[in-house]
């Protein structure tokens, strides 16, 4: 049966068909749906792990015990999991182990744009790169076989335009792996990576890469050569191949389904058969560097093809058409200057508990060390309440480090904010540091009860597993106290005045402190009935009271807009315009009500 599957869904399907027994992940766009879909297959144990390093280690343990294991993450997740990954390469596997990593060229929802193919060379493991959903399924299946046959973890590299594209897949059946489930103490020289053993494994790893290279050459079915017009030949992998094939269908192609190790003889044959070779790849010149190092004369590559941002058929056409066909691209003349149009960046949802908290931080004029999550949107104007953000968990250490430089001067001026999921992912270490090494820092955990940014995934403090089964819950207050934080407080962010006071007191303290938000579930977390907390379901602005001071616009609620229309209040104040609330969007959080200085915002009669 043919079904349209999203790339991520197809990876999950491929893993299931390959008999995977364990799947672990920490969510991250564009990878999150892989595990979400895999969790729907009853035969597979799946979990949201607290972070990618843990996920990698759980998957490896499963593999060593003989189960096939899949671990998934976004590109930056592999940085977090790099430590186990680099040595798992030495240890090898028993049950097949596939590491699915999804890149985000163009940074649709990421803090950087790294090219995960580099990990294959760096970690000395093979990497397969599917281009569409059918290949996602096929490559995932074969990746498990490669893993077991060559005793290696296998990287499966996806990216936004593979993970989040839909195309038809012919579904197959599940086949259980025949691997015996057991642990073997006789294997310690392979499983215990002390220097004495690891030095020996180091040689095995090199030997393995040689064997893999000849497999890529001879047996791997998805390195494909297609000789058409031989005047130009393209070497490409993944979705870059699809774009190029679309723009230059008449020429010859070498499509590499396995981007590492490279099939040197096949590449030689391709160079023999075509006159000029162009390498088309997204992000880094990974293939190009290697192929040039093999001594081949590459006609064009990154001299013309952009290495920043997402590659698209448009970008390929514009950068290569002249060289390849001799003709410039003819583009449709612009009908309208669309660059000038108002942009539509995302915003915090109406009613989101992050909004009043950021408003409180803004009032206190703090330098806010932020982090990654929905609350990253608090950096955008008009809230403009976040001033630092690098990677998950970095804000806590950052604010503490800054305090070490600023000393007493910095007291009362800085704090760190991060979400519940981010805190569990990587916020506990820096919190311990602040206590242990004695400095001041205030860490605000914005607990909305879910991993919201990536689409509502459970985590160890939500009380539910990936399948929605009840689970024990981490208690943030107890956790903070147990690492030695003496000042742990909770606030209801919707009470702005009280929140401001609590934060003011804690940031002034020359000690580590933690503030946890309560009564603050994500507006999209249905089971928490987020709207029922609010006293009224909608508010309105009394037209004849609003003085047009614009202060409520600073809360940045999507329901509030400015109406440029001169007028007068009921007590005769002239104004240039007034604010208005769209009742369709307002959820009644009453944040704007607390901000308005003229009491012009009142409940909408129900």
């Amino acid at each position, binding site marked *: 049966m043919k079904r349209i599957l999203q790339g991520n869904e197809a990876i999950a399907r491929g893993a299931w068909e390959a008999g995977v027994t364990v799947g672990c992940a920490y969510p991250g766009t564009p990878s999150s749906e892989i595990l979400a879909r895999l969790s729907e297959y009853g035969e597979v144990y799946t979990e949201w792990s607290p972070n990618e390093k843990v996920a990698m280690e759980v998957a490896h343990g499963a593999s060593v015990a003989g189960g096939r294991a899949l671990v998934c993450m976004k590109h930056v997740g592999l940085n977090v999991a790099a430590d186990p990954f680099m040595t798992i390469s030495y240890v090898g596997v028993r049950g097949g182990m596939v590491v699915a990593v999804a890149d985000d060229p163009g940074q649709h929802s990421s803090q950087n744009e790294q090219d995960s193919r580099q990990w294959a060379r760096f970690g000395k493991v093979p990497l397969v790169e599917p281009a569409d959903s059918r290949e996602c399924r096929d490559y995932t299946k074969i990746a498990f076989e490669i893993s077991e046959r060559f005793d290696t973890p296998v990287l499966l590299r996806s990216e936004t335009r593979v993970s989040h594209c839909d195309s038809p897949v012919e579904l197959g059946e599940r086949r259980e792996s025949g691997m015996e489930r057991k642990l073997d103490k006789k294997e310690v020289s392979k499983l215990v990576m002390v220097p004495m053993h690891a030095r020996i494994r180091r040689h095995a790893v090199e030997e393995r890469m040689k064997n893999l290279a000849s497999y890529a050459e001879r047996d791997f079915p998805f390195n494909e050569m297609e000789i058409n017009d031989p005047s130009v030949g393209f070497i490409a992998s993944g979705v870059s191949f699809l774009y190029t094939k679309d723009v230059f269908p008449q020429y010859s192609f070498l499509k590499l389904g396995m981007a590492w190790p490279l099939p040197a003889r096949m590449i030689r044959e391709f160079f023999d058969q075509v006159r000029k070779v162009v390498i088309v790849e997204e992000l880094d010149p990974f293939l190009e560097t290697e192929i040039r190092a093999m001594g081949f004369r590459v006609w064009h590559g990154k001299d013309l093809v952009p290495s920043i941002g997402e590659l698209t058929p*448009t970008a390929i056409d514009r950068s290569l058409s002249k060289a390849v066909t001799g003709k410039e691209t003819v583009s449709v003349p612009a009908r309208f200057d669309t660059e000038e149009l108002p942009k539509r960046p995302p915003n915090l949802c109406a009613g989101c508990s992050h909004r009043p908290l950021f408003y409180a931080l803004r009032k206190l004029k703090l330098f806010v060390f932020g982090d990654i999550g*929905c609350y990253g949107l608090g950096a955008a104007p008009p809230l403009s309440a976040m001033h630092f953000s690098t990677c998950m968990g970095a804000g806590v250490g950052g604010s503490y480090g800054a305090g070490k430089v600023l000393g007493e001067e910095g007291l009362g001026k800085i704090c760190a904010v991060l979400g519940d999921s981010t805190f569990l992912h990587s916020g506990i270490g820096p919190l311990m540091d602040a206590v242990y090494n004695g400095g001041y820092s205030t860490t605000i955990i914005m607990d909305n009860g879910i991993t919201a940014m990536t689409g509502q995934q459970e985590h160890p403090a939500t009380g539910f597993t990936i399948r929605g089964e009840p689970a024990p819950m981490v208690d943030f207050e107890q956790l903070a106290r147990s690492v030695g934080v003496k000042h742990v407080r909770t606030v209801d962010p919707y009470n702005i005045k009280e929140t401001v006071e609590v934060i003011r007191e804690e940031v002034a303290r020359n000690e580590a402190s933690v503030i946890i938000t309560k009564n603050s579930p994500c507006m999209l977390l249905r089971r928490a009935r987020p709207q029922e907390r609010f006293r009224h379901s909608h508010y309105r602005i009394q037209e004849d009271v609003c003085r047009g001071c614009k202060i409520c616009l600073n809360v940045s609620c999507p329901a509030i807009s400015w109406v440029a229309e001169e007028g007068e209040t009921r007590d005769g104040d002239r104004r240039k315009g007034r604010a208005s609330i769209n009742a369709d969007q307002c959820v009644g959080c009453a944040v704007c009500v607390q901000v308005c200085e003229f009491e012009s915002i009142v409940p909408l009669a129900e």
Partner: protein
Amino acid sequence: MSQNGETKNIFLSGVGGQGTILAGNILGQVLLEAGYDVKKAEVHGMAQRGGDVTTHFRYGKKVYSPLIKEGDVDFLVSFELLEGLRYINWVKPGGKVIINNHRILPPAVNLGKMAYPAGMEEIFKKHFGENFWIVDGRGIAKALGNIQVANVVLIGALSRFFPSLEPEPWIDVIKSILPPRLHEINVKAFYEGRRAIKIE
């Protein structure tokens, strides 16, 4: 629309929450069942937070790239006026445009910093003439009692341009994707959308 297997490009644009994803899914299933290869690309990231969303949809005998080349769009279907204008240069000469008559103010307009563009209908008329249709998807959906079905109104409108496909396969797919309690209203929305298009 597609003849001799050549790949056709449909571009859907709108604002997060307007149901472009469901619309793309219906389109995909109908065309797959009609025997085409299909590819669909969308960026999910922040769609739920009111940002702009687009879907690249391609079908034909064999489709390679999931993304459409700028200037190659055969059909632009926008769920919101400004989001239609944003992609006006993506449409190929002779391409067709359907726009939902609905304004959603972006933040800069809400804050009074920028104006929502005026005269959009005229701009589209000027460039596309008879190949431009404005559909009151939201109004129709509201009259049916659920503004959420505006996306299916637009799918209904688009379906008029597949003369070889009867309404039935579309209806079957809509029913197979949506829960039964939503069948009746969505089927009505689909037919209303079909009726909203007058083709000379």
